[in-house]
């Protein structure tokens, strides 16, 4: 308490300490403001104020950097405000029903995003289930096992993978992966079909099995999205793994550990924050992925947890698909769906950033 009060009072006087001392002020001032009076300081022993007196260059750069930093906040805030404002009519009209209704039929005045949200998360989760093991093993291989040559090659390949446009991944998933994914889906349905999650609304053992029933599914879309989020997840994990302290690595090896033992005891615990953070950042990206999903899925608005089956819908694919022919009321509904997606990704990314910051990653170890 005393320290903060003193700082507040002392700060403006800091430039004029000498003047204050020269005038033999009445004792009362020393009691009110001990920091500004040498006698008082000796008596009360409170922290004195220090004028940092930054050079002009530093102050100028500080100002520019702060302005640009704040600009990011302003842009983010204005997106949120704009979407929130545009959502008001829809939310007033449909209320909570907007979140529970699964169908999207503006022509019948039936609107809701529960089905779309389920589809969005299903695609994202499929993508993560595929991308996570690939990303973590890629990251471990690059940071721990690869020779310098292979390492730089793989790093640039992974970066290149991130630079492939979404539309290409969409075409890749649609034309190349879909027939193969249908076989995988059929296999999963045949052998794990007793779990509702792997069911498809068809008979898996029918003589010519209904291949197209396994097309255009959340599973196929998830594969394409996985390829898009993999580079980012792998890059975040690799960078954190590479920071694992050399001292601890050598300690483990000097105890007679295998390399894998060292990775398990030193690298992975150290990289925990990066693993979780990278995965959640991927989740944020996977939830919003649009064009590849639009290409692959065939729209279906039911709430269903059967990713192998044909038909699903995601928020971003819905917006992209309906945006062109929307009336102003429908546009508001689409913007509301976008607002919900914005909030969800914002929350997930903030959580990811908090986890990465809180983890020991990058912190010094002594």
């Amino acid at each position: 308490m005393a320290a903060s009060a003193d700082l507040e009072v002392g700060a403006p006087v800091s430039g004029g300490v000498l003047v204050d001392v020269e005038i033999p002020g009445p004792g009362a001032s020393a009691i009110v403001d001990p920091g500004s009076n040498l006698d008082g300081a000796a008596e009360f022993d409170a922290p004195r104020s220090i004028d940092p007196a930054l050079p002009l260059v530093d102050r100028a750069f500080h100002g520019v950097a702060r302005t640009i930093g704040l600009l990011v906040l302003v842009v983010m805030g204005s997106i949120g405000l704009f979407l929130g404002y545009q959502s008001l009519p829809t939310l007033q009209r449909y209320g909570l029903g907007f979140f529970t209704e699964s169908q999207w039929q503006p022509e019948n005045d039936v609107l809701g995003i529960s089905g779309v949200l389920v589809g969005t998360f299903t695609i994202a989760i499929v993508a993560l289930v595929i991308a996570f093991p690939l990303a973590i093993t890629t990251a471990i291989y690059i940071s721990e096992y690869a020779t310098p040559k292979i390492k730089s090659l793989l790093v640039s390949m992974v970066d290149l993978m991130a630079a492939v446009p979404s539309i290409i991944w969409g075409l890749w998933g649609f034309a190349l992966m879909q027939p193969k994914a249908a076989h995988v889906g059929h296999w999963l349905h045949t052998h794990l079909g007793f779990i509702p999650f792997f069911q498809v609304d068809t008979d898996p053992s029918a003589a010519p099995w209904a291949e197209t029933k396994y097309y255009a599914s959340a599973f196929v879309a998830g594969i394409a999205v996985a390829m898009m989020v993999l580079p980012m997840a792998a890059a975040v994990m690799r960078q954190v793994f590479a920071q694992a302290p050399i001292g601890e690595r050598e300690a483990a090896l000097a105890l007679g550990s295998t390399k894998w033992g060292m990775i398990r005891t030193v690298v992975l615990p150290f990289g925990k924050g990066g693993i979780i953070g990278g995965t959640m950042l991927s989740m944020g990206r996977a939830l919003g992925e649009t064009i590849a999903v639009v290409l692959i899925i065939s729209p279906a608005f039911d709430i269903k947890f059967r990713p192998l089956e044909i038909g699903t819908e995601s928020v971003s694919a819905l917006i992209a698909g309906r945006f062109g022919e929307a009336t102003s009321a429908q546009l508001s509904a689409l913007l509301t769906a976008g607002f919900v997606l914005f909030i969800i990704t914002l929350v997930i990314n903030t959580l990811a950033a908090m986890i990465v910051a809180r983890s020991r990653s990058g912190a010094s170890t002594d």
Partner: protein
Amino acid sequence: MTAVARPLDSDRPLIGGGSLEAREISAWFGTNKVLERVSLEMPANTVTALIGPSGCGKSTFLRILNRMHELVSSAQLNGKVLLDGHDIYDSGHRITETRKRIGMVFQKPNPFPAMSIADNVTAGLKLSGVKTSRSEREEIIERSLTRAGLWKEVQDRLKQPGAALSGGQQQRLCIARSLAVDPEVLLMDEPCSALDPTSTRRVEETIHEIREQVTVVIVTHNMQQAARVSQQCAFFLAEQGTPGGIVESGLTEQIFNNPQDPRTADYVNGRFG
């Protein structure tokens, strides 16, 4: 000493260190030769101090003794290191087993920060795949911490993270961790250079006490420390532009009181380095 903690080398007595001998060790980093034909015997249950100015190859030599040298990708070496008569660089010897038998304590204390004090001590057992029962583990924890002179300070807080200890305590925790896998040789690379005088004394006492069970090789910049803890001493020197080597080695008393080489006399008397 339980047989469980040392299952793979039952032919050697359970108490007592191993003898180590380096024969004609040369070492390179890339094309830069840092050691030239260094030979040194480190008899069982003695403390050998490696002294010499910075950059003379002491630490490189030490890291060659338990195959840590090769962790640097450009590092190469020639020569042999014999542990109880067998070359540890022979293809028949597993590197993990060698490192387990020849432990190492580093300059900067490096406990595993995510682990408790107790888990730090037993980390080596888990890492080298030694199966232990709970009671054996507790016994090993107490014995290792006692040998490292840390038991009394931490016995009430074994579940706390190892990183919460002071620097000197962390270093003794690292010594306890190395001792828990029951090595025959313990290499110490300037173990006290990051510690205050009190902690340094405790570590030196620890070295005295563990000498009965372990052969110790210690790199130090501190002449007094070398004189206090070692029975045998090797003086390394790398003259301008040439790889490092041993100028003189022998009993510590002799190196300090009656050095044969004028360069050794200059160094131990503090005239350079």
